[in-house]
């Protein structure tokens, strides 16, 4: 449903569509340049996507400084460089319709360059300046800080963001994943330009960096560009990323009263570490469980428009269940029953086979854009220390069998940390915090999932 009016400006240029001939992919490769790993995927098209990744994410700062990495990465393009004021920098970019954008994440942050290949020679020096000689001009910094604070309030106004934040803060209390990369109003308000600049200087090391290029560029050219980029960047200390296994101590429940038009529920439970033998099997399990939840919660019981199941396979892997519903207690009974049933009966070989077929489609779907490929290569390198996985995941998934899928589900989907925002008079906390087996629905209220 297109509820909000969105601009549709997708039009095609006569005689300039992508040529099937050049679409043939050349092989991806990596190389070390000045001690920085560079992963290159030739794209076969005229778009250039380059990511510079800074490893660590929320591990890089304490909770009272949450938001500092986001502000630092934003400042690279919004607070000027030694060669250009903010306006001069942005005006040069817009003349060639080039996007340089920073994103702060849970496990790593990125500065992305997206341009048309004929504009790269003009775009690259600006990208290099942003990364290596940003100036953190104090008046521009005040402006972006105000924008960041308004952005936090705007995020908090969105119910899906709010329930997700509340859920992570509750489940990961005291741990790195309780921090939000965009920070809190109080932490962002206290940050100064000098402190943020010093922070950026501390993470701008070759040891933290990874560069991903998805573009049709000669190897020599990429090597030269990265050499220039990294020439002045210090080596820095070797980075060891911390991994944490989240295991809820038992079922739990927390609620917040909120005047929303429906009620929001999110549960968090465990998941396997990237690189573990169960990772791919668990991904398939959650793919199938998504369909099962959809069938039970939406189709059979009409309880929610968009029941979600998601596996976040980062440095702290976890799994979420999320719904919006006017009947929260009905939902918890249906989902608990479904989890119990899946534990008892497992997934069928046919479900596993179909899920693998779906992964083939998703695999190629992701290959359609340079941006999605670059993100996947970066995430696989950071989380698995193996960017090749991004290109062979299709084959890896074919090797997974039903028994492994069932075992992975049983190992990781047990207790759940539930949170709720909405009309608190409509929810019975005891149903959420009790053992699932004590909340059984009559058998006629639950179907056989996809087995019919």
């Amino acid at each position, binding site marked *: 449903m297109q509820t909000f009016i969105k601009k549709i400006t997708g039009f095609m240029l006569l005689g300039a569509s992508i040529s099937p001939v050049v679409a043939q992919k050349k092989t991806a490769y990596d190389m070390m340049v000045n001690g920085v790993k560079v992963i290159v995927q030739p794209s076969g098209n005229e778009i250039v996507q380059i990511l510079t990744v800074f490893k660590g994410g929320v591990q890089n700062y304490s909770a009272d400084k949450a938001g500092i990495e986001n502000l630092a990465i934003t400042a690279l393009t919004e607070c000027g460089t030694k060669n250009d004021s903010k306006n001069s920098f942005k005006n040069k970019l817009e003349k060639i319709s080039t996007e340089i954008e920073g994103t702060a994440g849970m496990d790593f942050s990125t500065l992305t360059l997206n341009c048309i290949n004929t504009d790269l020679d003009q775009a690259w020096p600006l990208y290099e300046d942003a990364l290596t000689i940003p100036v953190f001009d104090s008046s521009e910094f005040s402006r972006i800080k*105000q924008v960041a604070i308004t952005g936090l309030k705007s995020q908090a106004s969105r119910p899906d963001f709010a329930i997700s934040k509340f859920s992570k803060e509750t489940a990961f209390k005291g741990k790195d994943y309780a921090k939000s990369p965009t920070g809190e109003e109080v932490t962002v308000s206290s940050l100064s330009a000098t402190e943020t600049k010093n922070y950026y200087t501390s993470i701008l090391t070759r040891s933290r960096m990874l560069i991903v290029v998805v573009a049709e560029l000669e190897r020599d050219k990429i090597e030269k560009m990265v050499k220039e980029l990294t020439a002045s960047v210090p080596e820095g200390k070797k980075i060891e990323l911390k991994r944490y296994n989240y295991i809820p101590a038992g079922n739990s429940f927390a609620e917040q009263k909120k005047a929303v038009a429906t009620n929001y529920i999110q549960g968090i439970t465990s998941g396997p570490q990237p690189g573990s033998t169960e990772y791919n099997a668990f991904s398939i399990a959650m793919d199938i469980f998504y369909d099962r939840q959809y069938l039970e919660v939406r*189709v059979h019981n009409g309880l929610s428009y968009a029941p979600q199941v998601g596996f976040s396979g980062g440095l702290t892997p976890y799994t979420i269940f999320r719904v919006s519903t006017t009947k929260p207690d009905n939902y918890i009974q249906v989902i608990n029953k479904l989890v119990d049933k899946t534990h008892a009966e497992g997934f069928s070989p046919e479900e596993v086979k179909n899920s693998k077929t779906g992964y083939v489609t998703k695999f190629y*779907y992701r290959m359609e854009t340079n941006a999605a490929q670059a993100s996947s290569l970066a995430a696989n390198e950071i989380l698995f220390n193996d960017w090749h996985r991004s290109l062979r995941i299709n084959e890896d998934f074919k090797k997974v069998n039903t028994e492994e899928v069932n075992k992975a589900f049983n190992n990781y989907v047990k207790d759940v940390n539930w949170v709720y925002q909405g009309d608190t008079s409509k929810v019975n906390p005891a149903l959420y915090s009790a053992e699932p087996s004590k909340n059984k629905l009559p058998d006629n209220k639950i179907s056989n999932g996809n087995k019919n």
Partner: protein
Amino acid sequence: MGSFAQARLPENYYWEKLPNGLEVVIIENDKVPLATIEIAVKNGAFTEDSNYNGLSHLFEHMFFKANKDYPDQEKFQKRTQELGAILNGSTGDERVNYFFTFDKDSLNQGLEFLNSAIRFPIYRTEDMQKERPVVDGEFQRAESNPEYVLYFACSKKLWGSLYTRKNGIGIHEVINTATPEKMMVIKNKYYYPNNSILVICGDVKHENAFAQARKIFGSWERSGFDPITKYPIPEFSPLASTEYFVMESTLAQTPVEMFWWQGPDTRMDSAGTIAADVFFTILELNSSKWQQALLDKGLASSIDATYVTERYVGPINIEIEPNPGKLKECNDEMLNQIKQWGNDDYFTDEQLKNAKEIIHRNAIRKREKPSSQASILTKSWCSSSLDYMTDYEKNCDKITREDIKLFVNKYITGKPYIAGMIINPDMNKKLNASGIFKPAI
């Protein structure tokens, strides 16, 4: 190939109109070994009066429920899983579309599946009873978002008694009392090949894809009438006067403002729709007076000015997140800027040139993803034409300063508009937002 006029299309696009009136477009692109199929119907909010508001959307949901070959949703879902399909549908103001992406070798099976769902749906009371709260739940999710609440309030005022024609999500009561009979009314009015377009894109060959489309969809019976002629769309009345309003919501952590005008459409003023796009691209430039006055000076943290291309009066919208500490300055400066939009010196020749370059480069980016090309094409087919889509960049290049002035003077300068703000009660009291948010004297 029928004896119909050939639409102008980009390279690697192939068009055919079947004898039953179904237009078929094949887009060859073998970047990845996938095929995407999409069928779009000229249906949606624009066809809905207050008795049917929200039912094009419910109809779209019911498409995924049951049909003669897959008689319940479990079987429907299982079939999509066997195909490994990524699928969805959407309902907009002027288009309802359904799209599937799967392995290229599954094209025939995918088309058969689509055919069953679009032509032979089954509506059961029990299925509808279960789906109604789902659709209503989608509505409630939107209502939990203050931005939507403000959007909806503005929309009602902008479109007046015909607001249902721009309100695809509908009216709770209409959704909650929908019946199978009402679904059949929609099907019998709009779901015909001569009111639809089929697009097949991806790693396919057009000769083979056309052959399959003819074989599978060739027997779909045409209506014998043009639905949009038989069930005419009433014209929107021009907005009579400017109106400001402030809404309070405890959910709105920071104020949001929207300003709406009735803009051009592709029936009456196609050139105006292109001028609007070029002008709003100029406003997006960092160097523009608009961005410099509002963002660069810290009066707002975000500001988006857009026009939506539609066949029946496209809306012009400014959405702004003002700096809460500078509400009055922001409001005054924004109105000051809008007053100048029609001035000769509001933008430079270089900015006009840069905007056109941006439109070209964005077009390259939009062509990147093969599976999205079908939806881009059907949107144009429903709200403008295939020629409009094909010639779009060329026509943007032709836009002059005079064209933009004409657009601004015809639709914005001195014209009535709707201005709304949503803010939480405490902030409203503290900042006196209701006292500040008003037209300049």
